[in-house]
């Protein structure tokens, strides 16, 4: 049930991303709300099933984007796995995990998209892509992740109610 709610949350994030967030870029890099929501959701201690959420995010983005389906599927899948690992390694410093996974996840997803486009023959100069798209996008993600994490925390409290000892 909790995973199902997580998938619905990802659906809402994809809709917001395609309708609003994509239209508010910094230079030419908009925030990646799907990634930020994914990281915020997976980092919560109660969330055990990491892969289904990541794959659902990848699948939903894959439907909306012109990139081949495997690119976002692999990208968001790897981000969910990376976040799961960070949760295990840095379970006492959740804030550090949050920022580290957002930073690395953003670079991973954008890097994968860029690599695909280069292989596919789309001429995108690296310097231009890094300065105009990647850096602003990563910055926006890092700014956005804290409030989104707060909202997701409230949601996870409803989805995963605290255990009461009787």
């Amino acid at each position, binding site marked *: 049930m909790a995973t199902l709610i997580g998938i619905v949350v990802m659906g809402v994030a*994809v809709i917001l*991303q*395609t*309708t609003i967030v*994509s*239209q508010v*870029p910094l230079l*030419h*890099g*908009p925030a*990646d709300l*799907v990634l930020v929501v994914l990281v915020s959701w997976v980092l919560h201690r109660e969330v055990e099933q990491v892969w289904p959420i990541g794959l659902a995010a990848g699948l939903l*983005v894959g439907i*909306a*984007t*012109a*990139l081949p389906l495997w690119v*976002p599927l692999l990208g968001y899948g790897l981000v969910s796995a990376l976040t799961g690992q960070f949760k295990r390694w840095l379970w006492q410093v959740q804030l550090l995990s949050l920022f580290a996974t957002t930073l690395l996840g953003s670079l991973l997803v*954008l890097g994968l*998209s*860029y690599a695909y*486009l280069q292989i*596919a023959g*789309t*001429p*995108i*100069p690296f310097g*231009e*892509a890094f300065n*105009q*798209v990647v850096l602003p*996008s990563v910055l926006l993600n890092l700014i956005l992740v804290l409030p989104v994490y707060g909202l997701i925390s409230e949601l996870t409290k409803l989805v995963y109610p605290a255990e009461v000892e009787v």
Partner: protein
Amino acid sequence: MNPNSRSSWRTIALILIVLGVLALALGGYLTSLSRLALGAISPAQSWLVSRYQAFRDLINAPDDLTNLRQRNAELEAEVANLQSKIIELEQQVAEVELLSALLDFARTQPQNEYQAAAVIGRDPSPFMQYIIINSGSDDGLRRGMPVVVSEGLVGRVAAVTATAARVQLIIDAGSSVNVRLQTAEVDAVLVGSVTSDISLDLIPQDADVQPGDLVLTSGLGGNYPPNILIGQVSSVRQQATDLFQTASVQPVVEFNRLEIVLVIVNFSPVDITPLLPESTP
């Protein structure tokens, strides 16, 4: 003297005095006197009236205050309602203006059949300049159909589902359009970029290209109909060591403000792939 006759004289004297005063008043001889009297009375009147009104307000205040608060709430609700109606009407006016412009454009191009569609989303990847529109194969859309607005060329349909389609904008880094420079009468290729800037490539070195030249689709390659406006040349770069000139183009379409677009549904792109020479190993 008889008391009766004394009384009569007194009455007559009083009548005469009254008549005299009346005559004086009618003649205007008592104006200054009356002014003097009123001058003394009116401050007292004002003071008395103001105190009376204050007292009356004090007595009636709670009732009035409740009524006023109720009326204020009603008016505030009405203002909010009217404001929302104004916003709604402004949106409708903007939409009507947009549709009117598109209709005018469609009328000027009677050879084309159009399907209007609203922009419902954008590609989530920052590297891809695509929009999603709310018309699909159910409305007659097919892959490769050109998409325009009243100002000029937007792009072409890249993928279609039953009820939606994805349109590749001409500003996309993977987009290339065969164009013609109207003044210089030379062909070139318009390419997009990751920063949404568009530029011209493959302009012959001997072509006289000037800033301000209009850029139109040439129709070569069969991907777009000819003579659709794209923009104006904003700057030209020519180097003796290069094979071709390049130029920056200022597009006529505001790609970040697209709301409604027209798809040319009676245009089928020509697939010239079989005609291209095969690359030899």
